[in-house]
């Protein structure tokens, strides 16, 4: 196991309900610096809701989030993005008519300081800033090996590559925590292997902490340091992949249990 650092994100007793539907019930777990943390569970277990709580899309009714020592009732999206939490989505959320380059450039949005007028004139500070952003975006493109589609509109790319572009946009924000919602859903084996390699490389090269939701157990067991298991909005397991694999609760949740 790779060395991981301090706890940087601690979720304490989170409960989230939509009317009478309890999406999450009293869930606590933590994320350490530099680790790959997987969230698994059957459909409807509350995995995506959990990610949405982390980056502030949902406000939990109960519980507390401790992010880098700061206690919060809930996150909000702007704050989350500002403090270095980036994410990708289960259903690709890219600008289909824009090129790969432009899409990834949007990941730099929060770091652009020039105003609209300056950017329209593209002079002085705006130009310098754009050059710097472009350099970082190009590094991401280089990293993900998508140079050959740099100028291709995203809508024309196959699914696996669109997923990669989405990862690129998240990376362009230079996040300290990356939330990946089913990064490998719908991919073939080769695309999955590529994506695994990129996730590990991101974690390794940039030291990014990664929280991912994934259904492919092989992938989860291979790349994650620790795994949280949710079922019907409750936490039923938390630990190293090997422990999770042998946990009776988890096996029951996945395979069903004779009553």
């Amino acid at each position, binding site marked *: 196991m790779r060395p991981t650092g301090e706890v940087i994100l601690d979720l304490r007793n989170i409960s989230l309900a939509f009317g009478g539907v309890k999406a999450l019930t009293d869930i606590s777990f933590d994320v350490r610096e530099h680790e790959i943390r997987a969230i698994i569970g059957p459909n409807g277990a509350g995995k995506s809701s959990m990610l949405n709580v982390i980056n502030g899309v949902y406000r939990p009714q109960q519980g507390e989030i401790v992010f880098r020592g700061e206690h919060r009732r809930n996150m909000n999206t702007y704050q989350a993005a500002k403090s270095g939490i980036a994410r990708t989505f289960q259903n690709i959320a890219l600008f289909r008519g824009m090129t790969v380059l432009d899409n990834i450039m949007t990941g730099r949005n929060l770091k652009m300081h020039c105003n609209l007028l300056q950017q329209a004139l593209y002079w002085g500070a705006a130009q310098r800033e754009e050059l710097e952003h472009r350099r970082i975006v*190009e*590094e991401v493109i*280089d990293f993900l090996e998508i*140079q050959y589609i*740099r*100028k291709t509109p995203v809508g024309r790319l196959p699914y696996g590559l669109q997923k990669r572009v989405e990862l690129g946009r998240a990376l362009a924000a230079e996040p300290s925590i990356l939330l990946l919602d089913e990064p490998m859903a719908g991919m073939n084996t080769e695309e999955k292997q590529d994506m695994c390699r990129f996730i590990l*490389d991101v974690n*390794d090269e940039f030291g990014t902490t990664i929280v991912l939701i994934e259904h492919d157990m092989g992938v989860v067991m291979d790349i994650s340091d620790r795994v949280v298991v949710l079922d019907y909005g409750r936490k039923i397991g938390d630990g190293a992949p090997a422990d999770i694999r042998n946990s009776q609760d988890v096996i029951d949740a996945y395979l069903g249990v004779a009553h």
Partner: protein
Amino acid sequence: MSEYAPHDTFPNLLLHHARVRPRHPAVREKDLGIWQTWTWSEVAEEIAALAGGLAKLGFKRGDNLAIVGDNRPRLYWSMCAAQILGGVPVPMYQDAVTQELIFVLQDAEIKFAVVEDQEQVDKLIEARASCPLLSQILYDDPRGLRHYDEPFLHSIDEVQEAGRGHLREHPDFIAQEIAAGKGSDIAIMLYTSGTTGKPKGVCMTHAALLAAARGSCGFDRLDADEEVLSYLPMAWVGDNLFSYAQAMVAGFTVNCPESGDTVMTDLREIGPTFYFAPPRIFENLLTQVMIRMEDASALKRRVFSYFMEVARRCGAEILDGKPVRLADRLLYALGNFLIYGPLRNVLGMSRVRIAYTAGAAIGPDLFRFYRSIGINLKQLYGSTETCAYVCLQKDREIRLDTVGAPAPGVEVKIAANGEVLVKSAAMFEGYYKRPDATAETIDQDGYFHTGDAGYFDPDGQLKIIDRAKDVGQLANGALYAPNYIENKLKFFQYIREAVAFGNGRDQVCAFVNIDMGAVGNWAERRNIPYSGYTDLAQKPEVYELVRECIEQANAELAQDPMLADSQVRRFLILHKELDPDDDELTRTRKVRRGFVADKYRVLIDALYSERRSQFIETQVKFEDGRSGVVSAELAICDARSFAPQAAKQAA
């Protein structure tokens, strides 16, 4: 370094360019989306630092330096750095698997390797178990290598930094090392691909490579303003000549693409003036254009096909400076504005002054297409052993079926058995540690036996027809070259595979495999129903179609006095496709002539009898491993032949 040092080695030439054109771009590489440029003086500094660093690590005169990776500037620089130190660079194919690398690493007794990235580092670390000599590995791209703590791994940056320190302490080091080198030293070692037996290291001296590079630069008047794109494997002799030796002689700019996938885009951005590609690449480019034209609007398609017809009629002639009617000239000029110019631009060939192809026979339509839209595509002939420098086609003397006249300084003669023999200054020194193999290919008079069969046409242009071992004679003593005939047939889109027979016989006959896709499509458009390959192949209409192709080939063969007797008199269309699974083809899709002849003996006998048809039953293996039987009554058809004539045919 003395001002008057002879430019007899690559390091000397490097210093020469750094002095004469210090600010001229020597190398560009697209990195982070931007073309980064190094001038000749910067390149000289980088190479010196690398040489210093290598020396500090213990690289010595006579050592071999393995180089594995794509076309990256720093890999080219390590070639020169090794040459400065009196070592020999050994570029290897970057896609080679570990086992193949191990053979070369052991054979060449490699102690030092410079590689591109993690992928290659992993392979070499794996290879190290069987190559104990391998003691230092340098890498270009550090990505993914952060946690490798092997003490023998160094980044090129780090080595160069150490080298710069070393050079500060010993300012004369580089000059002394270069002065110790001679033109007769081995400059590079390239391993032949080894389709026949184990790969052999072909050793080439500075003098030989420079002779080839100077000869070809002079021949095509290449100067310092040329731009080339280096995208072919570094381990291949052609890349060595085009991207290294010629650049070192002429001082022109070598451009390294961003990645293997971006070559087409990079080609367009750079707009090379001198370009080399094997026929396969030209074919792919043309296919892409045609597919995109299919999707264009009706008006565009009509304009395109109209002007392509104009180009076909007079484009090649205009390029060759031949007389052309004024009306055609005007039409061509209009076409150039509307179609050919934009098309060249899309292909990245707007600025191409000279393009070469070699390595395989190029189809007539393909060759004519590029020439007719104004791209000066030419053919050359050479091999690793001859530094890819034997014959070159001269501007305006372009022929489809020859490879040109012997290049300046090259002596070519034809042995009694038709084999092409070559003698020139641009000749390899020998195979590494294989004097036996060297003695087999270079005779006492210093002629290199190419293994290719060919002859000179009346204009003194060399025509390569076949591998020497496949060439035979007809009963009347006329030359018989099966591959040449088969290639001619295979250029027709309807014919996928052909097998010619005729050695020792009175006439040539052939088996044909139709191209299921092309002929199937053709049949559908004519409402000819068929159930499968065997059925389609025996349709009288299909026989008629193939007969027309063969007769057209015969007409072309008749124009060549040497091969007029090789016209195909009788043929049949096989009832099944020749297949590697049935051992009829090799895995690289070459016909196993002897095997096919044995297997289908009854068909051959029928071809050489008066019969009009023959029954055959053949065992076949299906892809799922089951086997079955295909049987058919095969028709045998006569093809018209033509009286020999000595007319010339221009491309």
